[in-house]
């Protein structure tokens, strides 16, 4: 059996004494789309921030493509792409300029960045609006640019942190299609979302995280089977069953 592309082991992070991530462990195979699900404040984004080398973990470690996030962060950053939960764009610049800039930051030459920017805009069906400033874009278009930027530099692992929040069905569908195409190309995806049907549809396996700990991890089908008939039970039922119905603000 081949080594997992991502191996997270006992990852921990405290903020002012509060455990945000408390011993999270999981693995992701190369080319797999892995879902990280959980209510607000469960620790999903903190986990992604540590894996993306933005935050230093207080304990544990993770290997991405064989590189430690603690000791080989520079190497990790060479093979990842991040699509953050909040839009991270320069609104005063055009989409193509945003893509070229982040492409250069991802290690591409000027020529490569321009070529890949054009390709990614085509992929997101934004070629005709590429020279418009981002501030003129709709929410769905901005989300697509946000994803297009994450793809600059040909990452091997893509972090998609709630990439479809607040957008129209057409843009969401476009993002789904893109993720499925990426999987076909062998790109590994770590996906977080509050939309359970998205995870059910896209992810081969999901981990449900609450209170900073993984409370369940399996394929959506197996998780559904544990609480009833997998053809009638939804992943949302599983989620509510495991995390409870109390509000998390």
């Amino acid at each position, binding site marked *: 059996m081949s080594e997992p592309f991502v191996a997270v082991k006992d990852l921990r992070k405290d903020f002012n004494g509060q455990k945000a991530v408390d011993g999270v462990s999981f693995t992701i195979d190369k080319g797999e789309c892995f879902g990280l699900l959980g209510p607000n404040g469960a620790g999903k984004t903190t986990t992604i921030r540590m894996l993306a080398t*933005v935050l*230093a973990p207080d304990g544990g470690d993770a290997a991405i493509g064989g590189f430690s996030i603690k000791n080989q962060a520079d190497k990790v950053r060479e093979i990842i792409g991040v699509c953050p939960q909040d839009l991270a764009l320069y609104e005063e610049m055009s989409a193509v300029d945003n893509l070229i800039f982040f492409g250069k930051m991802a290690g591409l030459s000027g020529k490569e960045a321009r070529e890949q920017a054009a390709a990614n805009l085509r992929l997101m069906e934004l070629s005709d609006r590429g020279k418009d400033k981002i501030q003129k874009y709709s929410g769905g278009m901005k989300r697509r640019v946000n994803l297009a930027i994450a793809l600059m530099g040909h990452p091997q692992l893509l972090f998609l942190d709630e990439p479809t929040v607040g957008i129209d069905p057409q843009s969401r569908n476009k993002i789904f299609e893109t993720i499925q195409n990426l999987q076909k190309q062998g790109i590994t995806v770590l996906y977080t979302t509050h939309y359970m049907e998205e995870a059910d549809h896209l992810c081969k396996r999901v981990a449900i995280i609450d209170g900073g700990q993984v409370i369940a991890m399996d394929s959506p089908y197996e998780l559904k089977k544990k609480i009833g008939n997998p053809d009638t039970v939804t992943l949302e039922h599983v989620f509510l069953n495991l995390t409870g119905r109390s509000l998390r603000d």
Partner: protein
Amino acid sequence: MKNALAIALREIKSYLQDRGDLAFSLLLPVVTFALIYGAFGGQNLFHGTANIVNEDNGPFAQSLLNTLEHNNSLTVKILKASDAEAKLGRSDIIQLMVIPADFSSKLAAGQPAQITFKQRGNGGQEGQIVYSIENAAISDLNMGFQVQAVVSQALDGTGISTSVIFNTVQQAVATEKTSPSVSIREDLTGSLPDPVGQFLPGIITMYVLFSITIGARAFAEEKRKGTLERLLTTRITPGQLFTGKFLAGMGRGFVQTVILLVLSYAVFHIFTPLSFLEVIGLSLVFAAAGGAVGMLIASVARTPDSANWIAVFFTMGTVMLGGTFFTLTKGTVIYTLSRFSINTYANQAFKALVARSGSFTDVGVPFIILAGVTVFALLISRRLFSAVSGQR
């Protein structure tokens, strides 16, 4: 370095694409320059206003007013007593001369008369000069009366009429004014200190300090946009990010200063080609110091607003302590504090180069201090950035 330049270029591109920001920041030096030209471009001589309340309207009061009106450095403004007091109270005017109602009658009767001179505080530079001119006119008038009294006393009992004595003395005084017994020969050495040269250093330092505010917002703006975290997941190193942000902040402050200097060079001709290059070089080093201090603020500021306020507070402090607006007296506490203001060293150096036509060798110490501040502030800000944000 390639990544750092890409960061700086992106900042500059954003700046150039924001037309409002661009127009404002590039027009500002042009407007400042126009104001300097308006203030100093036409004339260098002093000109002030003598505010006078004339409650007398007699011949001696009129004689005094005539003397003042003939002075080319003064504009005589006659005010009503009530208006004048109100204006002085509101600081609309800063000095006032009051000729009392009995002024001429007392002098005609051979009695002493008194003119009142009022001013707010020390009257400022203009008030003091106007006072000197008025005082000189009063002294001339006084001299006439004193001479007349002495001559009248000496000729008492000789049968010469008072009117003959008065007319003769007045003629003698008038002759003394036009052909004085003791004259002054003017021996000019060089030209008058150029007001543009005197004020330009302060204005330059103000412009360069824009680097602080621009630099201070560097990370807070990226945090607000969410792009800071995204950048930190790319191959760019924190050092490259710092360098890029520093270059962008420094560059914008420097460009504005260069516009001001080029206009000053072209219109006022206060530079030689060499001194112009020296001032440009000094501006670059000062902009670097300002940009580095801006990065220091950027490293601890959590929001663009807090970055702005810290930068404004720092800029105001450094300008006040730096001797831009007023000269600091040696030995005072504020003078000691001024040694910690980068503006102090920049002002010293700019004054040496612009106002005193010095060369680069005259500004070695301030130059080294500003360069040292740049390096020190960049090193500290880099450490603070990691410590405060908890990021790499």
